């Protein structure tokens, strides 16, 4: 177990966009966008609102449409001047190389890292830990021999792997960050799974992004203060225009969380 860090990070707010064949999947409700389905235009909007990073989750099923993802990364690098991560479908170091060379700052690996954890090490060794994000989808076992289990394939497939042990393993392999999604909470708007988040933060010394369940601005505060997360990821509260990133930042700052102001 690593030594806990004593100096808190400045929190980060990270909007997440689901992308299929180069288009935003979930409905997005910005009235004044020329093309509400264009992930680059949306990411640029979030950049202007003060988002600290953006994550694209590529759910493109067909491999012959992979080029649309590369094109998306290319255009994003020209229009968005905050860090962005792309995840989904990365199975090899070559997959990662193409995306990073096109302008992505980080790649996140999920199912492929469960099947072959060495992929994390290979990406970290080749391009540095700072761009190797391990994306962990976890569910409560509710009385199993360990509290949280890793799932793959968008939360559908159980693996029998202890999520806490796996978090330790991927950081030892060189992951520079953990994107931790509670599949129990994802889509519920009930807030983060705080126990899960804390449990992973406490066993790793790399930044942890809490994900899954955000329905209110208070949930973002809870993720950082109670969950001890370094960053919070949310989708629907921003996409549907309920809140801007700027409002979220003001709310977090008012709760005493150190964070870059939206207008900085």
């Amino acid at each position: 177990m690593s030594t806990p860090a004593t100096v808190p990070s400045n929190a980060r707010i990270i909007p997440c966009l689901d992308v299929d064949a180069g288009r935003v999947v979930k409905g997005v409700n910005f009235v004044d966008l020329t093309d509400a389905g264009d992930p680059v235009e949306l990411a640029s909007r979030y950049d202007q609102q003060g988002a600290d990073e953006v994550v694209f989750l590529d759910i493109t099923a067909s491999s012959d449409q992979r080029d649309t993802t590369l094109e998306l990364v290319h255009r994003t690098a020209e229009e968005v001047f905050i860090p962005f991560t792309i995840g989904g479908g990365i199975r090899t170091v070559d997959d990662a190389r193409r995306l990073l060379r096109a302008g992505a700052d980080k790649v996140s690996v999920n199912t492929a890292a469960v099947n072959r954890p060495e992929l994390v090490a290979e990406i970290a060794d080749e391009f540095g830990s700072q761009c190797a994000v391990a994306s962990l989808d976890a569910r409560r076992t509710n009385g199993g021999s360990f509290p949280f289990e890793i799932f793959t394939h968008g939360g559908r497939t159980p693996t029998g792997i202890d999520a806490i042990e796996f978090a330790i393993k991927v950081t030892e392999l060189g992951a520079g960050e953990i994107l931790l999604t509670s599949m129990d909470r994802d889509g519920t708007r009930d807030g983060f799974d705080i126990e899960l988040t804390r449990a992973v933060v406490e066993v790793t010394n790399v930044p942890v992004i809490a994900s899954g369940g955000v329905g209110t601005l208070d949930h973002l505060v809870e993720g950082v203060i109670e969950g001890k997360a370094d960053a919070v990821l949310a989708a629907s509260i921003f996409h549907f225009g309920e809140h801007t990133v700027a409002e979220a930042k003001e709310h977090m700052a008012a709760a005493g969380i150190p964070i870059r102001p939206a207008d900085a």
Partner: protein
Amino acid sequence: MTRPLIAVLDYGIGNLRSAQKSLERMGADARLTADTGLIADSAGVVLPGVGAFGPCMAALCDTGLDEPARAAAADGRPFLGICIGLQLLYEGSEEAPGVAGLGILPGTVRLLPGNVKRPQMQWNRLEVLTPSPLLDGLDDAWVYFVHSYAAPMDDSVVATCDYGGPVAAVVADGNVAATQFHPEKSARPGLRLLENFVNQARVAAVGA
């Protein structure tokens, strides 16, 4: 206004394209290149980078860009290192014992202290110690850092951030400057720094 030629050294590692694109955005004719002729003709040179000290130094040498980088730093043209491109300017790093850096700046890059998360992967506020044209408009600006190692806190440090104590954020010595943070990923303040650099290159090109 002329678009000064800026050579962004392409030594084949991860994301270097963002640096090139943001320099273009701020008025440069920025080329991602390993062409020594183009580098010699440039008005300014950028040594970008992401990754670890050892593999990056090896990649810089393998692409034959170590000597052109030293030459550009020595001949007085505006030179900007970014992130690992800052660290490579030093004589070495605790990250890769025994691997010689470019040695353009004296000293050794050291691991961040144990009371902070490593890497520092966050936005943090700059404190400018020594104002300069490059840092015009950057005091108190929030910029994006991702690093586990940092330059020595000596006289070349012109701006810091607070991460369990002062950490070198910008270093400068004559025509050579470098940022530990990623200006190409630091929204408006980052683009401002790159614009300042492009302006310096433009002036240098006219004076040449």
